[in-house]
């Protein structure tokens, strides 16, 4: 790049930016291995807090919460991915139609409404129609806000696949369904998997909406952690945080490489 593009001071700011982004996470990771019960003083390296997470007095709560989180994230991400794939086909492979603009706005609506508003509205809705709050209400709310996140990589991938593929298949007497199942869906697969993973992370991440629509006594990991943090940050919270952090980073890295993989083919 030409020297004109270089501004002294921009590199230090970039480094500062990365330090601000990563330092808190790294510090929490390091302190999760701290043997001392005091969160301020460094004792020695130890895995006691990880043992505490899996077998300590609060382990039952966290285990149940982790299962709920996992079940909801898998179910919500799967549903959202199917819905988003179908919506992407309608938006990109079905020509123009009445209500197309409105449909596009609708898919993105969950991104535009502030989370706290969605949370309040969903709580009011379930309460007004007398729907018992529990895992199902959390799941329904999660599917809705996962749809746009699943849609983004799937639509991007579909846009990169030229129409000749399914047209050729249909010229060779494949039915529409066969062309979709045997030609288009396999080509879309990297985008679909990336969409699933992003939706999975987004569902796992949610606190506010879950906190409003969950029934009494039902916790997901974020609501359980929030409850525990209100009593003060204990070392076992740092151990759980570190584990969740690793899951997020692994899933996002996988999603990133899947999207890249997709780009090579087209």
């Amino acid at each position: 790049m030409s020297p004109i593009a270089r501004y002294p001071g921009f590199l230090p700011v970039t480094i500062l930016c990365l330090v601000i982004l990563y330092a808190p996470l790294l510090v929490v990771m390091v302190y999760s291995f701290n043997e001392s019960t005091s969160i301020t003083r460094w004792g020695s390296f130890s895995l006691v807090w990880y043992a505490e997470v899996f077998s300590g007095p609060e382990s039952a709560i966290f285990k149940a919460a982790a299962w709920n989180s996992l079940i909801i994230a898998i179910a919500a991400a799967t549903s959202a991915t199917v819905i988003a794939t179908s919506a992407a086909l309608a938006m990109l492979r079905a020509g123009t139609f009445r209500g197309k603009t409105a449909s596009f706005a609708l898919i993105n609506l969950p991104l535009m409404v502030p989370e706290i508003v969605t949370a309040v509205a969903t709580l009011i809705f379930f309460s007004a129609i007398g729907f018992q709050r529990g895992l199902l209400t959390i799941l329904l709310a999660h599917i809705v806000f996962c749809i746009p996140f699943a849609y983004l990589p799937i639509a991007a991938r579909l846009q990169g696949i030229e129409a000749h593929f399914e047209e050729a298949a249909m010229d060779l007497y494949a039915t529409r369904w066969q062309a979709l199942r045997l030609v288009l869906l396999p080509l879309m697969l990297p985008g679909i998997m990336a969409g699933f993973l992003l939706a999975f992370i987004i569902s796992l991440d949610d606190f506010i909406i879950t906190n409003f629509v969950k029934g009494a006594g039902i916790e997901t990991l974020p609501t359980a952690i929030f409850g525990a943090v209100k009593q003060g940050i204990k070392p076992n919270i740092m151990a759980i945080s570190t584990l969740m952090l690793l899951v997020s980073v692994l899933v996002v890295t996988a999603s990133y490489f899947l999207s890249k993989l997709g780009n090579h083919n087209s």
Partner: protein
Amino acid sequence: MAGLAESGGSSSAFAPARLWLMLPSWVLIGFFLLLPVLMMLIYSFLTKEFRGGVIWEFSLASYDKFFFDRGLFGDEPPRIEWTYLGIFWRSAWQAGLATLLCLLVGFPTAWFIATRPARSRAIWLFLVTVPYWVNLLIRTVSMKFMIRDNGPVNEWLMALGVLDAPITMINTNFAVQLGLFYSYLPFMVLPIYAAVERYNFALSEAAADLYASRWQTLRLVVLPVVKPGIVAGSILVFVPSLGAFLAPDLLGGAKNWMIGSLIEDQFKGAAGNWPFGAAVAMVLLSIVLIVLFLYARSQNRVSG
């Protein structure tokens, strides 16, 4: 890349099935988001019942409570009620400062990344976006851990001799701004990056040939061209900051309420006034939709 523009939208192999393909999205989002927002609008005009719940009786009490103070017994002439407008004002102020902070750090970062060789750009971008995908609650708790009175930041600053005694950062306005900044920084970097990547550096060269200094070039040539990216980034940071709950709740403490805490209190906290909570949420939603509408209109004007 050529295929992107050609195939997108032009193929209609699945046109006969489009109704069925769109139906799941319409049902799910219509039923569990659009309808709930309409229900919330109705609730904001209902009468509150003691401890949660509502009475199905039309009332303007919630909006009246939001805007007007009629004294303890409700019989005095109405004056402007500043409590809730004040919380909105403070939220806008906090979100605005967080946006400014994001811009000050995000612009140089985005510029630096966009001027790297193509191969390393992806890695820098990946590094900036990864923290966004880490659970927001965990990030906020980590920040709380960092900046508490005897936390690592204070210890490092004292070890370096910058401070003699720990300073209180937690439960201050600054902590909230820092938390919001930390939550939404990648939203600022990405759109600015996209704008700088498209920027034609021949413009900078022309400016330099005409004896503009680097900073003059940045201010007079670059900024006007990449402004759409800056505006998009600012909206992406400001809008979620305005309705944020976790950063003000965990880092700001009880004295630094923002809109999110006010709404939460009506449903989960001590206040227990659903219609009022619905009204506050409606006001917030209206502000956000107006901001997005103005933004969309300005975008249309730019693209002609």
